[in-house]
């Protein structure tokens, strides 16, 4: 098949459902679809909605941090009405509400927004296309993954409305707090949180099995391992992390569920006393056990958050520098090392639990080791920019700025990885600054880049460049104004868990408190600059500029060798691969690049 064809689907003279003689109904087509592209879009839209919702929770918290004790404008009255006076008396955010918004912000952002967008949406839509497969290996399982995810989301959201409100013990749900936070209700927010998590975990496990099988089994003829685009490699390693790291959290979740509902003491020690007196449980459990099981998942999870974004960014950088990626193979090996090492660093989140110097030294060492492959990938991407005649379109702007933003996030991780400095920085705003730099201007920028980049494949139209650039520059400014001051607050000793932003904290100083205000203002700025994106996204589906061809960016990978949008089954004829993934600027190539499926 001609790889560089400049036709859209209609000009092939085929309808999108050419295998099926009957038109599937609405439900079959959009709700119970087994097509990986529809499922990808389902994941994409739901996770963007959750991203937006998680952002709103945080905005309410930011108000409380900047103006503690003042009624929240507009939303305050709504919270009081919907969630009750205990939560928002007179529109003022109470500590319980702050805690539950905090826990749910983290949970929603990690498990319902970023991972489903990075893995569920991009992974589903793009991976089969890039390896030249007609679909995922197990389409019905794929559908089940999405439905479980959706159900998990519904349970999480529903927990806001039950007596006592949603979970309040942080996204990390440390025991015994998580079990004792709501002594009144047995079916409390935490219980629903655990049920929701079990659903989400099951969804991720099925997804991971499906992705790995697909990548191993359904690669097109000629698509050898070292011809896989880096995006696919990133998804492959991510899937392994999910597959092997999530089950221990599922086990821990079941045990915490038993603690909450059946009165067991898996994570409750003997002689536990609260302000209400001795806790009537058998005791004999271990709070540290929860932390170990949680972080055994949650450290690999942070690489689940970052690797897919690295994959997206690599595709876009190669495409827009019109050069092969520098050091493709070392990037692949680096991604594998990250995958392996991320299973043996988890206790760097637990330096303060008194694990002893020998154990701390071990985890400190592995933590320093894992930064090496991260730096390799980052360096390879930086060098890839060197000497390219770069096209600065919106996807590329987001992709390029990913590099320094992730860089800041990674570098600020090093003082956290060293036991000595972490003892001071732990649980301060410095940690918040660190991981938000990696995830927000890092991963989210990578995912924005991906949305702008694959939009023409999904819809046949571009998103507006002008609005895209406004979105980009505004977000870049907003993100940095929000997160840089947090490093200062953290180094001044401000704890991450105070519902009044430290106003009542004896040691708080003026600078840290003033920064609370400036961060909140910057967050409003950031919010405003998301509006052009939201408008652009929906308006461009119908009214965006038409893509000139099936391969408007002049890309080499197979995802662009399909009709637009790709029909059920994706490829019109079975693709065969003859080339590596990034043969841009190849000498003698006609359009300056050699598509992977071009003969000769």
């Amino acid at each position, binding site marked *: 098949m001609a790889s560089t064809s400049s036709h859209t689907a209609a000009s092939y003279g085929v309808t999108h459902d050419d295998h099926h003689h009957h038109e599937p109904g609405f439900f079959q087509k959009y709700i119970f679809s087994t097509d990986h592209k529809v499922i990808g879009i389902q994941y994409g839209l739901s996770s963007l909605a959750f991203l937006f919702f998680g952002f709103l929770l945080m905005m309410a918290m930011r108000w409380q941090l900047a103006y503690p004790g003042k009624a929240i404008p507009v939303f305050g009255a709504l919270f009081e009405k919907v969630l009750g006076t205990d939560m928002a008396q007179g529109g003022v955010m109470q500590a319980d509400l702050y805690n539950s918004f905090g826990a749910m912000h983290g949970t929603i952002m990690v498990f319902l927004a970023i991972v489903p967008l990075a893995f569920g949406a991009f992974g589903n839509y793009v991976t089969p296309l890039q390896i030249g497969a*007609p679909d995922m290996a197990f389409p019905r399982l794929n559908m089940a993954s999405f439905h479980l995810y959706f159900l998990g989301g519904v349970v999480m959201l529903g927990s806001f409305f039950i007596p006592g409100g949603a979970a309040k013990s942080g996204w990390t749900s440390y025991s015994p707090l998580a079990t004792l936070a709501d002594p009144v209700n047995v079916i409390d927010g935490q219980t629903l949180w655990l049920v929701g998590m079990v659903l989400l975990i099951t969804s991720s496990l099925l997804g991971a099995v499906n992705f790995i099988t697909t990548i*191993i*089994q*359904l690669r097109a003829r000629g698509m050898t391992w070292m011809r896989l685009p880096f995006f696919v490699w990133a998804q492959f390693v991510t899937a392994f992390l999910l597959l092997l790291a999530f089950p221990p959290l599922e086990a821990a979740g079941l045990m915490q569920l038993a603690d909450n509902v059946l009165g067991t003491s898996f994570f409750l020690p003997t002689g536990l006393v609260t302000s209400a007196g001795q806790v009537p449980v058998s005791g*004999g459990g271990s709070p540290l056990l929860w932390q170990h099981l949680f972080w055994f998942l949650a450290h690999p999870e942070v690489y689940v958050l970052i690797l897919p974004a690295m994959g997206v960014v690599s595709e876009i950088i190669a495409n827009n520098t019109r050069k092969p990626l520098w050091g493709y193979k070392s990037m692949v090996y680096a991604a594998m090392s990250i995958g392996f090492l991320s299973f043996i660093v988890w206790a760097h989140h637990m330096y303060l639990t008194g694990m002893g110097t020998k154990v701390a030294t071990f985890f400190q060492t592995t933590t320093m080791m894992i930064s090496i492959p991260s730096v390799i990938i980052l360096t390879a991407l930086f060098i890839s920019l060197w000497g390219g005649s770069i096209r600065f379109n919106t996807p590329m702007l987001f992709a390029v700025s990913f590099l320094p933003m992730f860089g800041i996030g990674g570098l600020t991780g090093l003082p956290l990885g060293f036991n000595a400095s972490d003892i001071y920085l732990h649980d301060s705003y410095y940690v918040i600054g660190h991981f938000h730099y990696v995830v927000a201007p890092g991963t989210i920028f990578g995912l924005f880049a991906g949305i702008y980049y694959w939009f023409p494949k999904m819809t046949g139209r571009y998103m507006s460049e002008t609005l895209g650039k406004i979105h980009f520059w505004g977000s870049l400014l907003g993100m940095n104004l929000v997160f840089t001051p947090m490093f200062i607050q953290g180094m001044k000793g401000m704890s991450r868990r105070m519902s009044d932003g430290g106003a009542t904290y004896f040691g708080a100083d003026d600078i840290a408190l003033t920064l609370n205000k400036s961060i909140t203002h910057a967050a409003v700025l950031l919010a405003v600059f998301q509006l052009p994106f939201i408008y652009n996204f929906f308006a461009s589906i119908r009214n965006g500029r038409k893509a000139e061809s099936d391969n408007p960016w002049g890309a080499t990978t197979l995802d662009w060798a399909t009709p637009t949008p790709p029909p059920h089954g994706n490829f019109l004829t079975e693709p065969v691969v003859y080339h590596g993934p990034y043969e841009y600027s190849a000498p003698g190539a006609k359009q300056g690049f050699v598509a992977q499926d071009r003969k000769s």
Partner: protein
Amino acid sequence: MEIPYTYKPRPDTGLYNAKVGIWLFLASEIMLFGALFSSYILLRVTSPAGEWPMVEKAWPHGLLNIPIGTFNTAVLITSSVTVVLAWAALKMNQFGKFRIYMVITLLCAFGFLGIKSFEYNEKFTHYELRLKNGQVHTGHIEVNGKHAGFWDFGSIYNLERLGKEQVKEISFTADPAKPKPGEKHAEGASHEHKKMTVKVEEISKLDAFILRNHTFFAIYFVVTALHGLHVLGGALVLGYFAFPGAKFWKKNPEQFTNRIEVAGLFWHFVDLVWIFLFPVVYLL
């Protein structure tokens, strides 16, 4: 384009899709049960001394029914063998034999679950009784002259509940004293079960052998129940293939045989988990 390698093996990997899928799934299952086993070890090692006065050590021992556990181990191993024979029968194109072996497998599966539920019931009705004078007994109780029925959660009592229902006294039948190893059973002595009446005000702790009683029971029930759910799930799948799903044999024998192979791999895994579980939880 159709999805390739749904039942024909891919030449370079030598595997069909579902076989890759099941191995990956089993890898995640190993992590799941691995985490629970690790938790068992950690809870046991860090268990505070003096928690369980019936034994010298901190961790209860000897409360599980070893003969029944051994028998159940044999049941599961048998089923693991028959599921292979069922698959082999299909390979040799003997559908009748396949069905017989599947039925035996299913009988084993449900036999296992039935035996397990008797074992569970034994625990739900068995009590630890501590008196304020320091005495500790295990045995069975009657409240208001009533025994607990089979899986009768409604009649599980603890001290709190006795107080709430204003029960003044219960009758208690202590377990027969176990002969120490090497010691002969004294003729006629302590063989009959002695029923005694206990005043509630003299009790310092009363609870059945259920999850909330001790982390030992908590982890025992969680691990074995999760394993039991796997047995049930596996049995349902095997049952489906043995009966309603067997129609597929006519349509595509090769793919049907593969399905049995995949279900069989899962079944072996379930068996294997028990083979670890039994010695760790019952014997050690």
